[in-house]
């Protein structure tokens, strides 16, 4: 029996309630928002209450492992005063958001913004729903709402000894005009938020039941594999489709734009092997000779170029440097890196001349919707995106939805048939949106007593914003380039006071497309600054912690996390034999982070990272055990980058094609991580990214302590660590 998806029957009360993948009678992962089901009662955009007191909390941001689904639900539930044991979640679709005047706000899940940007309005959503539910009970009892109390979805009127539940009053509550003003709780009174609660989405990830984009199956679905030109900017010259179409299961060969070819088949394995067998000739285009070595030359020239855009300036660094009796100079670099999400890019699309539907793991459903609409040739209102859990995001699935565009273009060639496009790992490795490549020259001026009187940081290299959001470049400036180096303020500010400071950027854009890569520019900027501060300390005979403390007196929050990490690690006390320590600190994504790494280096140069102590002040901590998980994970990701992460370009193409040539950290290399979560209150910082930035410099500084070798170019794998 073939079921027409277009019937749009929704038998499941909601995706959350239906629980598992049911295909055929309802659109998988459509939300209760679009479901016509009397059993559910929407109180407001954020809260749906069911008769059995199950509360479905709507989540606009995407879950990709970082725990935002649970954290956002905690914030809503806290204000709602519902029973946490009966909370479920669901994603409203971006199409529903547009149809309801963007009632769920921004869908973008990047920049560690999930909670910090939306905490206020989601808490208000919970508080508003609570007021309406309590008012409904009060109306029913004909008592003032102020005499009613609520706990765990049970409303009580003590004077008359009556109780009811959210499930019972929900239909009446939904008809009450929402209050225009609600008071949010003081975080010190939190009972659900701020607690070490278990995630809401763990169990299905341990049984194989969890459906990721790659796992989706729709009735009549076909599968596609794709090859894009190995060189960015190249095109398909010619191909012999008959070789592919003769193979088992193959339905069609599709040219996707100018640069890619796809094979559509009954199974993905048939599609992939047919595509592999198909002869293709490429026109490699203008970048056929590009290489990492050539990029490096271009970037090197930028280090001394007269033209640069200023990101942070205090006093007059050039004059002060010219007058300084002593100067220290160093040049650092940071390579291209691939996100390498465990789940490769994929999307399932069903296109008809009237409607385009997309099922995909995305960090920004609305951006995916925009990409789908454009590729489909249909207005936004005739498209929708059903978000599936991401097998990793790390920024790859946020700003650019190249794989969605491809999948729509393929599905367009087979109207009415759902087609699932899955990239190979090789395609994923060589068609990423890479961590930008930069170099940095740092020059410090010192007075006779070793005090830092001036610092010039010249960054030369790639701009993500110029590539992805060129309209946001104003007067040639990409503000994101200066992450972690900004003037004092709430975002990514530098933690040092230096009387004469100049931080500027000479933009140099190689053809390899850059992307937002977990931690983004905060990563390399923190290596540059924190390793150079360490260089200054050693060159002037100062303890690295003591020097930092001297420069950080006006930056108490930066200093507090640094002190916490250093003290817990035992800085200043004798380390175990053969163990050496290194420090790093920084502020990014609204949070303050610091780390102390303990490493050993064998006489033959083998590095072992034994232990990391990391401190984080995110302002408010919504779920400390998940923040600890993010901090730990940030070391796996950040140390993978520091140890191995490098995508090199030769003949215009990325050389690393899989995990054999693009190594990442594994269990045997993972250090013990002690995470200190120390929320000081008064601000909301992110936790998914900031810690990445301190991972590499803490280890690099510890390597210097162990060996006397200053590593200024990561990855470490290319360096000889034998004692200097």
């Amino acid at each position, binding site marked *: 029996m073939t079921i027409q998806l277009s019937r749009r029957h929704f038998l499941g009360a909601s995706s959350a309630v239906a629980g598992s993948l049911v295909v055929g009678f309802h659109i998988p992962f459509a939300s209760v928002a679009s479901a016509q089901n009397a059993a559910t009662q929407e109180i407001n955009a954020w809260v749906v209450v069911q008769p059995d007191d199950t509360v479905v909390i709507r989540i606009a941001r995407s879950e*990709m*492992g*970082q*725990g935002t689904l649970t954290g956002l639900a905690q914030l809503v539930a806290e204000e709602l005063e519902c029973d946490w*044991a009966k909370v479920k979640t669901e994603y409203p679709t971006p199409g529903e958001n547009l149809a309801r005047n963007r009632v769920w706000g921004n869908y973008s899940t990047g920049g560690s913004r999930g909670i910090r940007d939306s905490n206020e309005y989601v808490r208000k959503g919970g508080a508003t729903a609570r007021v309406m539910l309590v008012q409904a009970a009060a109306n029913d009892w004909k008592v003032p709402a102020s005499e009613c109390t609520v706990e765990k979805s049970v409303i009580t009127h003590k004077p008359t000894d009556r109780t009811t539940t959210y499930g019972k009053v929900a239909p009446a509550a939904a008809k009450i005009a929402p209050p225009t003003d609600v008071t949010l709780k003081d975080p010190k009174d939190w009972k659900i938020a701020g*607690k*070490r*609660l*278990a*995630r809401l989405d*763990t*169990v299905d*990830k*341990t*049984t*194989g*039941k*969890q*459906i*990721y984009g*790659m*796992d989706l*199956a729709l009735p009549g679905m076909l*599968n596609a594999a794709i090859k894009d030109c190995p060189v960015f900017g190249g095109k398909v010259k010619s191909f012999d489709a008959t070789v592919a179409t003769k193979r*088992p299961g193959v339905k069609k060969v599709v040219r996707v734009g100018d640069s890619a070819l796809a094979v559509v088949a009954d*199974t*993905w*394995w048939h599609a992939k092997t047919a595509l592999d067998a198909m002869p293709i000739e490429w026109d490699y285009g203008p970048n056929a000779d590009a290489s990492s070595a050539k990029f490096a030359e271009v970037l090197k020239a930028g280090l001394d170029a007269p033209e640069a855009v200023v990101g942070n300036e205090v006093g007059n660094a050039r004059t002060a440097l010219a007058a300084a009796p002593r100067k220290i100079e160093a040049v650092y670099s940071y390579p291209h890196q691939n996100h*390498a*999400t*465990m*789940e*490769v890019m994929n999307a399932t699309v069903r296109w008809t001349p009237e409607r385009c539907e997309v099922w995909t793991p995305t960090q920004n459903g609305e951006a995916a919707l925009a990409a789908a609409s454009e590729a489909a040739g249909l207005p936004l209102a005739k498209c929708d995106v059903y978000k599936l*859990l*991401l*097998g*990793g995001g790390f920024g790859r699935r946020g700003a650019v939805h190249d794989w969605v565009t491809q999948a729509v273009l393929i599905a367009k060639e087979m109207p009415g048939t759902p087609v699932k496009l*899955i990239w*190979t*790992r090789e395609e994923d490795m060589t068609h990423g949106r890479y961590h930008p490549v930069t170099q940095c020259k740092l020059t410090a001026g010192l007075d006779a007593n070793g005090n830092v009187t001036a610092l010039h940081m010249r960054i030369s290299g790639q701009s993500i914003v110029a590539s992805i959001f060129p309209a946001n470049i104003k007067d040639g400036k990409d503000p994101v380039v200066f992450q972690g180096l900004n003037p004092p303020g709430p975002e990514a500010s530098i933690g040092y006071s230096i009387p004469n400071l100049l931080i500027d950027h000479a933009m140099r854009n190689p053809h390899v497309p850059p992307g937002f890569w977990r931690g983004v520019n905060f990563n390399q900027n923190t290596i540059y600054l924190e390793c150079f501060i360490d260089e200054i300390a050693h060159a002037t005979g100062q303890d690295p912690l003591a020097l930092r403390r001297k420069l950080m007196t006006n930056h108490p929050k930066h200093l507090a996390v640094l002190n916490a990490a250093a003290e817990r690690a035992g800085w200043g006390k004798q380390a175990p034999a053969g163990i050496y320590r290194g420090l790093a600190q920084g502020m990014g994504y609204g949070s303050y982070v610091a780390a102390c790494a303990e490493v050993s280096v064998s006489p033959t140069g083998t590095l072992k990272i034994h232990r990391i102590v990391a401190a984080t002040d995110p302002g408010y901590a919504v779920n400390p*055990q*998940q923040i600890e*998980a993010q901090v*730990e*994970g*940030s*070391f*796996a*990701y950040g140390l993978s980058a520091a140890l191995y992460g490098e995508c090199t370009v030769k003949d215009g193409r990325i050389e690393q094609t*899989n*995990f*054999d040539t693009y190594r*990442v*950290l*594994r*269990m*045997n290399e*993972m250090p*013990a*991580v002690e995470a200190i979560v120390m929320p000081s209150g008064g601000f909301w910082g992110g936790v998914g990214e900031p810690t990445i930035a301190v991972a590499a410099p803490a280890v690099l500084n510890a390597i210097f302590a162990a060996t006397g070798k200053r590593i200024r170019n990561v990855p470490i794998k290319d360096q000889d660590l034998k004692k200097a």
Partner: protein
Amino acid sequence: MPSLNVNGSVRQYDAEPDTPLLWVLREQLRLTGTKYGCGIAQCGACTVHIDGAPTRSCVLPVSSVAPAAKIVTIEGLSPDGSHPVQKAWVALDVPQCGFCQSGMIMAAAALLKEKPKPTDADIDAAITNICRCGTYNRVRAAVKVAAQGGAAKAAGLAIQHADGSTS
């Protein structure tokens, strides 16, 4: 039609002999808990048990698996998520994105069957799976919890579960 013994059932499939077992499991038998990560046996997301041995199914031609060989996938590790490894994983909230976790759990379950009290070195040697979210330390802690009969409190994470328990 050729067949495989998967999770205790004889299942027929229709695929060319050189098709990797992974894609037969995922596309023919609709057992999608076993993941494609790299296709070259590097990442371990495709780990299943064949006659108890942890095996990376993405490079194993399906024709090389004897019809009688007992294949167990994550879906068949236990009927209801009650395998000690699965319980330890839930107790410690191990998964982040979760994509690699089927493979991690299968590798851990095989290890514990062979070595009920694994050392850290045993864990390092047996679990070489890649996790990009960086769950390694909780994976290690959960393997130890499972080895110690489920004593999750010893891990010291103090996670509050919806049923009121703390682990």
